[in-house]
């Protein structure tokens, strides 16, 4: 009898081409009526195999390849790789370069989180909010373009420092921009956090408890939204050791908490940029001369907008390094995503996929 009543299972393919996803990922959703009982991801649509390019590009050229792991957090990828090689070669870059890297990192975080907020608003059909987030994001990108020369792929990092310095006027403009962005963010943040329609979609969706987050190895805002205080910026790479900030967490463990944590981080980024611009030292040079080729290995960890990323570099003393390995945050967040999908109604699937802030091109490289 029970077998007759038991609802039939259907498999619904989600992706690779799907309106809410700017990038292709394929998930087979096993459904019982309207509820997802299992989700089977399959990846590989954007695998380019760029780690193997180390055989063809020397360690200086690899910076540009590393930057193109992902267009959104491009600056941090380039920086992660450079810091790894700098550690191997045992070079200390000038303080000014460290501060500038910090500032640009936070600009990347600002534009990445704004992009995500917009996509989230689009995911639950709030078009006006989507457009508003992206409008503010353009201001951030303008500043990145003014100071680095590129909107997304900035290419200012090099092994041993930076390619160019910024002028005092640029610093001033940067500071004004973040203050302006902060002002414009406030009403947007208010809508995200207090609007009835936003809350009705986000509150209680995709619960990931603290224990589950640890067991499944979540990272970044996903982890902090489950109440775990981990932020690799506290390890003090670049100039973060001279900057005063608190880790933003939430104990709600749901989609709303993830949104709240990211919004908190937006304001935090603004604050970090302000502090960094106030403290930035003057110096003639923003890079140091390199001697010889790298030999040795190093594992560099840093906090991307989406969570912890690590860059492993093994060099053998020639121009070409032996192995370059990247682990990116979305990869770590895929297991928690599959967990939160189970038991969710079908209509929530796009939203839940979005709450981890998926960056597929990082994941597959």
């Amino acid at each position, binding site marked *: 009898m029970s077998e007759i009543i038991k609802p039939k299972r259907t498999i619904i393919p989600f992706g*690779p*081409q*799907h*309106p*809410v996803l*700017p*990038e*292709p990922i394929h998930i087979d959703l096993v459904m019982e009526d309207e509820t997802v009982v299992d989700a089977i991801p399959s990846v*590989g*649509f*954007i*695998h*380019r*195999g*760029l780690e*193997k*390019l180390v055989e*063809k590009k020397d360690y200086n050229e690899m910076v*540009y*390849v590393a930057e*193109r*792991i*992902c*267009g*959104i957090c*491009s600056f941090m990828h380039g920086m992660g790789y450079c810091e790894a090689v700098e550690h191997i070669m045992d070079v200390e870059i000038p303080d000014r370069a460290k501060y500038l890297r910090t500032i640009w990192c936070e600009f990347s975080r600002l534009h990445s989180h704004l*992009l995500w907020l917009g996509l989230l608003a689009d995911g639950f059909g709030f078009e006006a909010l989507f*457009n508003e987030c*992206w*409008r503010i*994001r*353009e201001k951030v990108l303008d500043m990145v373009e003014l100071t680095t020369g*590129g*909107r*997304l*792929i900035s290419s200012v990092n090099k092994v041993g420092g930076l390619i160019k310095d910024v002028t005092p006027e640029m610093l001033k403009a940067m500071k004004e921009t973040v203050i302006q962005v902060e002002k414009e963010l406030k009403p947007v943040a208010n809508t995200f956090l207090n609007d009835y329609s936003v809350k009705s979609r986000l509150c209680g969706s995709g619960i990931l408890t603290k224990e589950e987050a640890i067991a499944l190895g979540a990272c970044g805002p996903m982890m902090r939204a489950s109440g775990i205080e981990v932020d690799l910026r506290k390890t003090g790479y670049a100039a973060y050791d001279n900057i005063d900030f608190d880790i933003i967490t939430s104990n709600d463990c749901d989609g709303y908490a993830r949104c709240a944590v990211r919004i908190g981080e937006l304001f935090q980024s603004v604050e970090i940029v302000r502090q960094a611009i106030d403290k930035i030292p003057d110096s003639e040079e923003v890079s140091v001369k390199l001697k010889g080729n790298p030999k040795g290995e190093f594992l560099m960890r840093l906090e991307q907008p989406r969570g912890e990323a690590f860059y492993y570099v093994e060099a053998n003393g020639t121009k070409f390094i032996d192995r370059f390995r990247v682990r990116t945050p979305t990869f770590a967040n895929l297991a928690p995503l599959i967990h939160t999908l189970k038991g969710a109604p079908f209509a929530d699937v796009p939203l839940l996929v979005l709450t981890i802030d998926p*960056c*597929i*091109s*990082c994941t597959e490289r």
Partner: protein
Amino acid sequence: MKSFHKSPWLIHYDASSCNGCDIEVLACTMPRYDVERFGIINTGNPMHADIFCVTGGVNTQNAPIVKQIYDQIPEPKVVLAVGTCACTGGIFKECYNILGGVDQVIPVDVYVPGCAARPESIIDGVVKALALYQEKHDKMVQEGRGLPEDPSLDEDNDVDENASNDDNSSDENASDEENAS
């Protein structure tokens, strides 16, 4: 059906790009560049689309999907390769998994270089694509594959239809402008 070459619907697909070009395609529809004011809409359904924006150098696993989406778009259609990767494979050309450009898989009409391609140049590409779109449409009409034969419509549009059949697109644009003014 004269106005549809002015407000095409786009479909965007990421065929192994680094994401940089994708978000620039999305940025085109945002308030700063706002192509939606021209009626250009970013749709998620290939069957509603006229222009196919592809980013990235296409890897082996993605190639069948690019082909499938291309086949699903109704004729006439224009393909826009956005970004250096989509044009030639770009920095990833030497990767073992990259086929090297969208034109290895489907015919490409407009190439938009740049890494990442700027929204301005993408919009420029779309404008170029529109002219091609009109050309393709006219050709279809000439071959008798265009509009379905509908006698009731013919009565009203007889003169217009013939004009657009025989003349080239620039003439039609001109007559459009006359109508508008």
